[in-house]
Structure formats: C-alpha cells, structure tokens
C-alpha cells in the first residue's frame, strides 16, 4: 500500500507541484513583511510515573494562549504564536529525543521545559548543544546545575537558564518548622537509595551538618530501596531512640506503608515532614485511614503567594480559582511554575530585538520579570550565572469542618515573608 502511494511518479509530481507553488508562498510572505509564526516548544512529563504533577499543564497552556489571543507583539509587528507540546512519558531519554525533534524538525524559537531533573536536564543539554534558547523550572537548581556538569564560578551556560529553589532553601524551611515546635529535637530520617535520598543525606551538603549545627540529633535509618513493603525495622529504631520528628524524601506508597505500620506499632511522632511523597491533594488523600492529615511539606507555590501574572495581571489566587472551576480538581503547586515558565519565555520573545536564536537568547539572559512564581532574574546567586532562586515556604495538609478534604496551608514564611500564612501548625494526627 505505502509503496504504491509513494511511487516514483507521484513523488516527482508532488515535487514539481511544490516547486511551482514555492515562489508564490515566498512572495506572499515577503510582501506582507509582518508576522511570522513563532514556535514555542513546551516539554513536560504529561504521562507515565510523573504525570500527576503535570496534570495542570493543559489548563496552563490554554490559559496563557487565551490571554495572548494567540499572538505576540514584538516591536510593532504582530506574530502568531504556536506552542508545541511534547510529552516525555516520564522518560529522560525520550525527553532528550523530543528536545532534538523540537530543534531540528519543528525549528522552534525557544524551548521551555519543566518538572523533575529527568525532564529539564536532558532538554537543557540538547538546547545548549544545538544553540537554542531554553528556560527550565520545577527541579531543585542544584540537580540542574551540578547534574549537567556545572562548576561553580566557571560554567556559564550560553543557551540555558533555570529558576527554582535549591536544597539550602529546603533545609532552611524544614528547620524553621522544626524549631518552631517544642520537641526533643530527635529527627528520624527516611532517605532512600536514590539520587534524592543520597543528596539529602550527603554529609557535606545534605541535612546532617545543618541538623548538627542547630542542635538536632539525627537517627538515620539508612539508605533503603524504594518500593518496599515493610518498614518495621526503621520504626523499631526510631521508637527506641525516641524520635519525635520524622523526615524523608520518599515515594508515596512507601510513606503510606510507613505511616500505617507506625500507627500499628504505636509510634506516633509529633511532626512528619516529607518531600516528594505529599505533593498533590489526590496523593495525600490516598493515604490509608486518613493518615495524610497534618503531613507537612514544602510549599513552592499556591494561592498564598502574593504574585501576579505578567501576561494577564491575574493573581495566584485567581489562577487557583480558575483552575478549580474549570477542572473540578483541587489546585496543585506545579500550575504556578508551569505558568511562570511560559511567562518568562513570552517576555523574552517580546523583548527580543530580532527573531534569531542569538537575539532571543540575549533577551532570555537579561530577564528581569515579576512572574506568577515571584521575581525571576538570573545571577542573583554568586557563582551561578544561569540560576534564579524562587520563594519557598513550608506548610501542612490540613482538614477542617469547612473543607473536609486535605488542603495545603502555609504555616511558616520566615524565609519569604511576603507569602501569606493561612493556618496554624498542628501536631500530626494518628
């Protein structure tokens, strides 16, 4: 069938037709002089294991395109804009392939990528190698910078920039929370044998030195393998050491198993602060027997953040309300940084002096913009010229009579006081 369709004759015919048509297309293009199609590549893990954190991307893309009316004005020329969405299927290798496809086949003007190092690192590497401007977010900046072989003070990526918080910010907000409560300062840690767990437990840059400096004693249960069905050894260890604060960076089924067994064994720590396992409302709701209630976790975006869209002027609270009205699902944090990512990209395009990779890249590098996620300006961190830090607060998944489902409230904002506090910290319920 296929071979028949693409016979030598039909190909020749099509080629001839194209050759005849081409001058007409070229002529109409140059006669108008205005508006070529601007292509933005947008890469995120829309399906696969990470799909639940990019659930809001479809909404965000529509929202931004709607606000733009499908057009971008650069100087006094109006250009049509197209966002080409690519789904990594949560696979780092596929992310690299998709970035190459965007660059070589779709010939995009700028690439935006978000959510987890497995997405942003391979995409950034492709963009850097091919000389295409690229902005990323949604992964701690250290994983992006060091994960790509960056050397502090030496490496200055020409085409790629990243905005997000870093591990020092995370440690600072966790400690802020733990110090605000009266406990025996004994911390039990569940750090698995994966890149996150190893980074968190790093004796030089992870939690151990910070905890020691602040007078906390650490009971590290050791690097366990993800997805295990029994945590009784860890629980026995924590129980005998009198642990009152449990922390970790875990997969959600592991945290569920740990919480259930803790309750069975009568181990009831006052505070459970975890990264990764309690990011979205549906995940928190999925812990058996309501054990998701009063889990604490970092908050990187939400209606509590005092920021506005640079495109439509909407506030973070407006965006949350629109999301909940349109999708019927509770809001989740990644909406904010996917939105900000598009803002940074569109702002750079608007400021570009010409529609060439060099000019757009230059515009990206000179970004100085108030976005949905806060102020984005690269280079505010000494020695890391491609990185911008965004705010981080800490909060808790609480439930009350008014809202019976767990929702994320901000309880401490010491490091970014402009984030609104909308709840009092409560001890973990068991």
């Amino acid at each position, binding site marked *: 069938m296929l071979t028949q369709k693409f016979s030598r004759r039909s190909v020749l015919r099509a080629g001839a037709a194209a050759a005849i048509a081409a001058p007409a297309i070229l002529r109409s293009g140059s006669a108008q002089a205005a508006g070529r199609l601007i292509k933005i590549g947008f890469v995120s893990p829309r399906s*696969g294991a990470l799909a639940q954190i990019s*659930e809001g991307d479809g909404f965000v893309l529509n929202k931004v395109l709607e606000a733009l009316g499908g057009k971008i004005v650069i100087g006094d020329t109006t250009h049509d804009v197209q966002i080409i969405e690519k789904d990594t299927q949560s696979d780092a290798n596929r992310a690299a392939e998709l970035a190459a496809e965007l660059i070589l086949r779709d010939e995009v003007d700028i690439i935006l990528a978000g959510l987890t190092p497995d997405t942003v690192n391979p995409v950034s590497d492709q963009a850097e190698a091919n000389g295409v401007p690229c902005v990323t977010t949604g992964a701690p900046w250290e994983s992006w910078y060091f994960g790509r072989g960056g050397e502090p003070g030496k490496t200055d990526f020409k085409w790629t920039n990243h905005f997000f918080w870093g591990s020092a910010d995370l440690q600072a907000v966790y400690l802020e929370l733990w110090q605000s409560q009266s406990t025996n300062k004994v911390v039990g840690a569940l750090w698995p044998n994966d890149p996150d767990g190893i980074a968190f437990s790093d004796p030089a840059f992870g939690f151990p030195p910070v905890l020691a400096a602040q007078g906390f004693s650490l009971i590290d249960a050791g690097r366990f393998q993800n997805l295990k069905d029994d945590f009784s*050894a860890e629980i026995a260890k924590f129980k005998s050491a009198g642990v009152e604060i449990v922390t970790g960076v875990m997969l959600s089924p592991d945290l569920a198993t740990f919480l259930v067994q803790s309750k069975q064994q009568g181990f009831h720590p006052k505070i459970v602060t975890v990264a990764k396992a309690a990011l979205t409302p549906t995940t928190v709701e*999925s812990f058996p027997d309501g054990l998701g209630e009063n889990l604490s976790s970092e908050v990187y975006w939400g209606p509590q953040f005092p920021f506005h869209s640079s495109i439509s002027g909407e506030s973070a609270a407006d965006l949350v309300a629109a999301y909940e009205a349109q999708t019927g699902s509770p809001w989740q944090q990644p909406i904010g940084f996917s939105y900000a990512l598009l803002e940074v990209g569109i702002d750079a395009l608007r400021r570009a002096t010409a529609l060439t990779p060099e000019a757009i890249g230059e515009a990206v590098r000179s970004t100085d913009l108030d976005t949905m996620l806060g102020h984005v300006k690269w280079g505010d961190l000494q020695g890391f010229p491609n990185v911008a830090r965004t705010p981080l607060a800490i909060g808790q998944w609480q439930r009350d009579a008014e809202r019976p489902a767990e929702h994320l409230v901000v309880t401490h904002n010491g490091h970014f006081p402009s984030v609104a506090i909308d709840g009092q910290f409560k001890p973990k319920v068991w």
Partner: protein
Amino acid sequence: MTIIYTIINGILLGGLYTLFGTGLALTFGIMRTVNLAHGDMIVFGSFMSLLITRFLGLPPFISLVVLIPAMFLVGQVLQHALLNRTLQQGVMPSVIMTFGLSVILQNAMLLSFSADRASLPIGSLATMSLPLSGDFAIGVLPLINLATAVLVLYLLHLFFRCTMMGRAFRATSDDPTTVELMGVSSRQMYALAMGIAFAVIAVSAVFMGARTNFSPLDGPARLIFAFEVVIIGGMGSLKGVLAGGLILGIAQALGGAVNPAWFQLAGHVATLLVLAVRPSGLFPETIDRT
C-alpha cells in the same frame, strides 16, 4: 527479642507475598507459561475493587463478591481468546504476549484512572493492631491477610486433590495430549485455570490496595516478588507457595533489620540460594513434559 519481632513481621509480610505468588503458581503449574502481566493484573484488580466500592457503595472486602466472579471471567476470556491461540508454538509466544499485555494494561489504566495514587477505603482496619508486648504489636490487616492466604491455599489444595475437576487439572498439567484422549479439552482446562488464577488475583488486589496506595505503574514491582515466591517454593506447588512467601518475607525482614539497604537484596539472595541448591524449588510438583 528483636529477632523474634523481626521474624513475626517477616511472616506477616510473607502472607502478602504468598497471595501474590498463588495466582502465578497456578498459571505456571497448569499452563507451564509465565504470565508477565501478573503484577499489572493485581493493580487492575485493585482499581476494579475501587470502582465497585465507589459505585455500589460496598466496603472493599465485600466488593470481592462481585470482583471474584468478574475477574474469573476476565481470566477465562483472556486465556480462551488470546493465550490459547499460541499453544502450538511453545512457551515463548505467550510470554511475549503477556509482556505486551502488561504494557497495554499499564497505559490503559493510566488513561482511564490517571497517574493519581489511590487506596481502598477500609477505615481504621488499616491501622488496627494487637499488642503482643509493651513495645511490640502486630497489625490486624496483615494478620487477616496471612490467614486468607493460608485459607485460599487450603481450598485450592482440596479442590485439586479431592474433586474430579481438580484431577483433570493435574492431568492436564502433566500431559495435555493424553488428557485429550480421555475426553478432556485441555484448552477448556487452561481457560478455567486462568479464571481461578484471576480469582486469586482479585483477593490479593484487595489486600494490596488496602495496605498501601497504588497507581497504574506499580505492577512490575509486584511481579518480581510473585516470581521469587514461585521460584523458592517450586514450580506449581501450592505448599511451596506458602513456604516461598514466608521465606521471602522473613529474608527481607531480617535483611532489612541488619541494614535497610539489604531489605530487597536479602529476598533476592534467598531466591538465588534456593536456585543454586535446588533449581526446581523446595517442593517441585510438576513433572517435566518431554
């Protein structure tokens, strides 16, 4: 004392693994093929139980009344319409087919249930416990799980030993050609066996969904433990499944008590040791088809 607690925990964990392994042992024992979609089928069962819980308002354990017959049918249809077609071509095509099925199933579940994690709502039963001493308690749910696993195995044992149909199953396992001469359709037997395997999967699915939360991509992680249970216990042996499940659970618990990093490793080492010492498992029951 700690070592006794650890072993008790291991035995309870073994109850879950025993249930995982039973379904796989049945397909292996009778059809002599490996169902690589076994883990995904368990996750599928958990989602089905969740749907029944939501739409019929039944508690998850009662949902088994609907789920077991439904899964029995699914298994039968799967074997009849799909896997029986490959019988003539040896073992490999059906293994590859179940591998493909595993991928399809994962993505179909992703599409229909999204990547959100879910759990079966069994309320406080999930966290209830019986205190054994001042500082040690055992969970009620794991205990029920272990009891159920033993009960399921006992019922299957009675079925295979004491009924005509059970005898027909064993005969089909040993020599499908001769069985055909006796007027038993081996294809029908295979379909029934897959149905029974799926009924057991339904039971393990409810326990898995109640114990922790699950998502469409969790299947392969469950498959590996089911595999190890069957390998330790001996291909196709029901007694062996219980032994395999308990050995795997205890090995993991002991390994984890020494060093958390050795939890899964200890289970794998136990499996390898059995493979090295007794390649056909502790209680091999199937005879070689030649």
